[in-house]
């Protein structure tokens, strides 16, 4: 009665609590065994030797498009854990490089800086909050210190505007 391919135990596990009596259970089980027998009658067409050879030839030829047997060790790199770890390491290296390059780069002059100094060969231009506090009436004040020659005395000039840019101020300090 019991079928090794579809045991009564498995049948009971698949269809629990469906039967009022043991007779009903066995009768149902028998019915499903007959069903499986019927299904076994479904033939699977045999694959001819020619078809088999052709499928193998095409599959083997087609594989090389994405897989290189010359470097089978590369497959190791494609393991998920290795790929993940490699990603983390590369990310850290990249972040470190970016952080270093940022630290090394010269900081741009910001108008909010307390005192910014621009230097050229002969002049130094001072701007920023310190200068604004020194001359609160002047708009956009900047002090230009000029020394035409090494030996000459430096000249200090304050540049700025008044009345919202209406009046231009040049004041020798």
């Amino acid at each position, binding site marked *: 009665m019991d079928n090794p391919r579809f045991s009564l135990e498995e049948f009971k596990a*698949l269809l629990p609590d469906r039967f009022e009596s043991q007779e009903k259970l066995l009768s149902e089980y028998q019915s499903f065994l*007959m*069903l499986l027998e019927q299904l076994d009658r479904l033939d*699977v067409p045999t*694959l001819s030797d020619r078809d088999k050879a052709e499928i193998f030839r095409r*599959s083997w030829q*087609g*594989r090389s498009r994405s897989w290189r*047997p010359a470097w089978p060790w590369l497959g190791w790199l494609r393991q998920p854990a290795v790929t993940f770890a490699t990603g983390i390491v590369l990310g850290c290296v990249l972040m470190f490089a970016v952080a270093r390059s940022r630290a090394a780069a010269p900081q741009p002059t910001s108008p909010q800086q307390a005192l910014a100094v621009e230097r050229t060969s002969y002049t130094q231009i001072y701007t920023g909050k310190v200068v604004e506090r020194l001359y609160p009436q002047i708009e956009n004040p900047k002090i230009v210190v000029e020394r035409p020659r090494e030996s000459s005395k430096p000249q200090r000039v304050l540049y700025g505007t008044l009345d919202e840019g209406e009046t231009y101020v040049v004041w020798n300090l």
Partner: protein
Amino acid sequence: MNGHDWTSDKALIEAIQRGDRDAAACLYHRHIDRVHRICHRIVLDPSLTLDCVQEVWLKVFRSVGRFRCQRSVAAWLNAVAANTAIDYYRRSRRQSNRVDIDDPQVESLVADEEAEDVQPVDGPLMQQRICEALEEISVSQRTAFVLRYYEDMPLPEIAGILGCREGTVRTHIRRCLLALRAKLLTKLNQ
């Protein structure tokens, strides 16, 4: 066939990973009939089965470098075959604008039916009726059934292939059996 006839599947896989064509041929001939059976029973269309089988082996040879020895080669091949056949079947359904219905009500519909013996009918008519009945079952249910009863695969492995829980596989098989019985009864009484 060749010198690899007595080599284990895993040794063959390692040889294929080194590019050994003879090892590939040996593995192929060892498993081709089972792969073909699985594809045929899931796709159910002989005109599509050959292409499906070829796609399975193409995937196998392309991904052989990623094969890990923790699982058996046969189980891996079964998984590739079943998943490829499911994709093939769904693609062919979409192309022919037919919908694969995974109907949860099928169980309740057939549960009330009286259990009757399916009377054996021989010949092509029987083949056709069984095919029709199988076609009317959802592809997930059919795959679970095929792998369990034709390929004798354990439920956890089937769950891994279908990407679901073991309980869901049981439900698939139960619905498939109930629906098949109801459909075959109807068809054989026609």
